[in-house]
């Protein structure tokens, strides 16, 4: 079986422990049919911030799907993460309207500022930097979403300032 290289630093283990709850309560929500695989993976990710190998096995047992199939799903879809995510999700919209208004420059600046590549998490587990395609707020492009908060018509300095206050 393909094993994803997951490194467990001390901070990570602590952070993941904080999020853990009983997986059974998630499994119970869906009947044990293969069609619920994706929904289950999404719910597990929403709860734990990522999908661990152990949880994939639990889900597979529940829906009756071979583990290899579940891995093909997890690695196919962009929104699934095999590594724990940071405390705050920083999402830079790179949709067309935002692209024309310089979203790429903001994403690059955040990479420098947070010392992390996009789609990765900072070492201290504070921030996960991601690019997304369009949350529909084109009117206030460029948009950066920090957790559930929208920063509209923003620029490098404003985003940095906002992150500092968190």
């Amino acid at each position: 079986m393909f094993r994803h290289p997951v490194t467990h630093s001390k901070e990570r283990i602590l952070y993941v422990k904080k999020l853990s709850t009983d997986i059974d309560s998630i499994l119970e929500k869906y009947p044990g049919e293969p069609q619920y695989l994706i929904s289950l993976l999404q719910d597990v990710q929403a709860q734990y911030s990522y999908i661990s190998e152990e949880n994939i096995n639990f889900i597979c047992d529940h829906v009756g799907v071979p583990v290899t199939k579940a891995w093909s799903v997890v690695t196919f879809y962009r929104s699934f993460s095999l590594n724990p995510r940071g405390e705050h999700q920083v999402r830079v919209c790179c949709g067309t309207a935002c692209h024309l208004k310089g979203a790429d420059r903001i994403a690059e600046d955040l990479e420098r500022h947070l010392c992390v590549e996009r789609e990765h998490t900072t070492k201290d587990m504070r921030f996960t930097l991601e690019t997304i395609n369009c949350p529909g707020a084109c009117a206030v492009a460029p948009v950066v979403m920090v957790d559930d908060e929208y920063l509209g018509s923003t620029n490098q300095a404003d985003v940095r300032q906002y992150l500092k206050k968190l």
Partner: protein
Amino acid sequence: MEKITNIEQLDLLKNSLRKARESGRQVVRVCLGPGCRAQGADKVAAAFRNAVRQQGLPVKVEPLIKETGCHGFCKEGPLVTLEPSGLFYSRVKPDDVEEIVEKTIKNNEVISRLLYSENGTVYKSAQEIPFYKMQKKIASRNVGDIDPLSIEDAIANGAYQAVAKAFASMTPEQVIKDVEVSGLRGRGGAGFPTGRKWRSAADAVKKHPGPVYVVCNGDEGDPGAFMDCVVMEGDPHSVIEGMIIAAYALGARQGFIYVREEYPFAIKNLTIAMEQARSAGLLGANIMGTGFEFDIRINRGAGAYVCGESTALFQSIEGKPGEPRAKYIRSVERGLWDRPTVLNNVETLANIPVIIENGGEWFSKIGPPNSTGTKAFSLVGKVKNVGLVEVPMGVPLSTIVEDIGGGIPGKKSFKAVQTGGPSGGCIPYKLKDVSVDFDSLTKIGSIMGSGGMIVMDDRDCVVDVARYFLRFLEEESCGKCLPCRLGLEAMLEFLDNFAQGKGSLEDIEELKSLAKAVQDGALCALGGSAPNPMLTTLEYFRDEYEAHIIEKRCPAGVCKDLITFHIDSEACTGCGLCASNCPQACITGEDKKPHEISQNACTRCGTCMDLCKFSAITVS
């Protein structure tokens, strides 16, 4: 709310809800569309509730605060409209709320500072504003008017009346016939006639009796498009109603709505709307006491653009990776779990109830004969009035961009409009009078697409835009078929070279032939239409490509490798903001004196230009 157990009961309920509405009570509508929410509309709505509560007005006088879907005029958000005065307030901040309650709601005074003005004219109500005047709303008829979380509000506005009409007086055959007569074409991009799709599915079920599915495609992945999001968020009942009618026509008992994960509010509002419809007896077993059974489940997308493609979407609902299959057998015959399936876009389904209520004949008279009805567009990019518009098909493009959109902001000029997202094309300024309908847009190399309309000015580089879309599709390609997996990568390499001033004119020809191969060989529409942005820009803006290749120059000043930043010594005040933020520390200068950029170290990140408050950074 009590359960509706027969068709007449719905009518009675609607009438009583209407009557309650006409009591003269004031209504405050706060737009909570994606644009306004991003500008803090949720805080404005909360402030209204708070302020009204504090006033302690008697229940009869207390205004009703409605948090509605998108009003469309996103650029002026957060938007607030008041009834019965019809006042339209724009750019409302939470701090303005107390004043509005005090002056407008209690004393009928108009706060002129919050009114929208354009070219010196001040507009009191939304209907007078040019942006709204030229629109015709069918699919988004209730969006911005009703509270999407209240089924009573939707019913008072006429929701589920079309279902009642279909149940009471139409056979499934008549429903299909009416949709055929309407001439409605799929709003998701391809423009396939909806009636014909339903007919084929109905025939397929007759041939192979068994389950049939109705699926709503809400996986609106095109970057820069948010029409479906607005409909799902602002009027979820219209989508549900459209699906019930489709289910009735086909005899389906199970439906699915596939929504992008990036639209959490659409998922939330649809879920609540479905629960309310179920408890009102409008969804689930025995709908309106007729014995008809149909239920819907929501499937969340997981961030794969290709899942907007029909066969990939079915795979995803089945819990598999979203890889499309070749369509020698159409999905109306073998779709979800190999059973006949009708897949319609959100906007298409939102049109259905209106067609059933008013008749296909009525709908077919709107717009040109081959593209009937209206179309919603998200008008974004370098245009003054960014927002959501719905216009009859066949209006000239210039009407949308210049009259409704107010043209290009600042002193820049209108260069092109990109329609149809990554599968569409760029329409140059010289073709701005083209009629916006399915066939005319295809003729000039673009497509209608799902309705993203991205306006570009002379500071936007077409090579960069073509590269942007191609990179997007290259990343999103599922990798199943070779032409798309490797072809897009190779095409992107050419465009990357052009953007760096490398390559030769022969490369353009080679790129074109590669594009042809990808178009012919790709398994699904993602690959098949991927070359469109590049091909149309090449056709209409070849000179710009040549400027990159031959002159090593980016005329729009976008492509990083071909530009340099300078500081205008007259405009620079020497504030030092750029110098302290330059990641390369390559800006130097004395305090309060013009600064300078050291070109050797500059990486052209653009931070200085974005930060400068005096527009002193120039590009050449």
